């Protein structure tokens, strides 16, 4: 078989090898660099996205925590207010109850006193009547003369009142 010289430059081979080199460059670019760089870019984008997502999530969490803390502080204040209100109400109610009780006791006492007074008056009046009748009987017996109660009512009353004053 025909062979070319060991050290030589064949023009067509030379041109063909230049073309081959550029074709090879295109093929490597198309089949290795392009897909791999795409994947690398995608991965980069994914990583960036995950980092930004994480940052966003952290900011959200911080916001929620702040809100929650604010709410907690508000709730605490409210609870304190409720407790103090309740205490005040209870105190008020207790005071009112004591006052009511005092008033009631006072009323009862006053009523009892009034009742006693009335009973006393009634008893005195009854006593007066009885004493009047008794006096009339005694006087009648003393003067042996029938004294008409109606005629001498005034006299008797005077007497009784004098007796009352004297007693």
């Amino acid at each position: 078989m025909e062979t070319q010289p060991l050290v030589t430059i064949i023009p067509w081979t030379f041109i063909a090898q230049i073309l081959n080199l550029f074709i090879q460059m295109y093929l490597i670019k198309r089949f290795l660099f392009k897909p791999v760089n795409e994947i690398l870019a995608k991965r980069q984008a994914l990583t960036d996205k995950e980092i930004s997502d994480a940052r966003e999530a952290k900011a959200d969490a911080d916001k929620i925590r702040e809100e929650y803390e604010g709410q907690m502080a508000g709730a605490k204040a409210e609870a304190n207010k409720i407790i103090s209100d309740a205490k005040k109400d209870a105190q008020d109610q207790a005071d009112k109850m004591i006052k009511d009780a005092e008033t009631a006791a006072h009323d009862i006492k006053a009523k009892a006193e009034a009742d006693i007074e009335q009973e006393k008056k009634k008893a005195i009046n009854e006593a007066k009547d009885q004493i009047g009748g008794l006096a009339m009987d005694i006087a009648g017996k003393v003067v042996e003369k029938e004294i008409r109660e109606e005629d001498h009512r005034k006299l008797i009353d005077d007497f009784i009142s004098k007796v009352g004053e004297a007693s």
Partner: protein
Amino acid sequence: MNVEINGAKIFARIPTGIPVLGDFTINETLVVSWIVMIIITGLCIFLTRNMKVEGISKKQAIAEMLVETANNFIRNNTGTNKFDKLIPFVAALFTTSVISNLISLVGLRSPTADLSTEAAWAVVVFIMITSAKIKAGGVLGYMKGFTEPIPVMTPFNILSELATPVSMACRHFGNILSGIVINGLIYASLAVATSAILINVNATLAAIPFLDVGIPAILSIYFDWFTGVMQAFIFSMLTIMYIANAAEG
């Protein structure tokens, strides 16, 4: 016994009738070059099939590693991202060179054992260097660069400029060719040694070159593997260094 080291075989000859270029020959260099291209492209397609963003396979990891290595190689050696456009070119140059050099291990003739191949690459690199220089300093700046530091130096500067592609091509070609020559000599001498040892035992056995099994493989670690990878590396390295230097002006 005779040892013959020949150039690439010519399979077919297509007459073109163009005076200077001569006939287009389908030779070993071109055929093996196409095989190399098919191997590289097939490898690229195989490695980048079914790529995923997460949970990557081993072959995807290899593909990514190759791309990252190529990117880092260019960026570290030039120190900038300005030459990212050159990455596929240098990657193609390096892989083609490595696979071409190593394909001799399977018995094919390296396309790089033909000066036409290296000359083609070196000329492409030379054109890139020159265009980078012109881009950096303008045509006048480029011309003026030859007269520095003193106008007397002009012929030497032109010579050194032209020496760049010549030296690049010849360095690569010389290393690969020397590997082929030495391999041919070793095979032939070991065959002679085998027959010399066994000639007194049995004439038929002596005709089989037993020593050719194994021993050349050890030597090919240097002459094929080391030289092949080293020359590809040097060629790519020089390419990127020259272009980076040229672009700096």
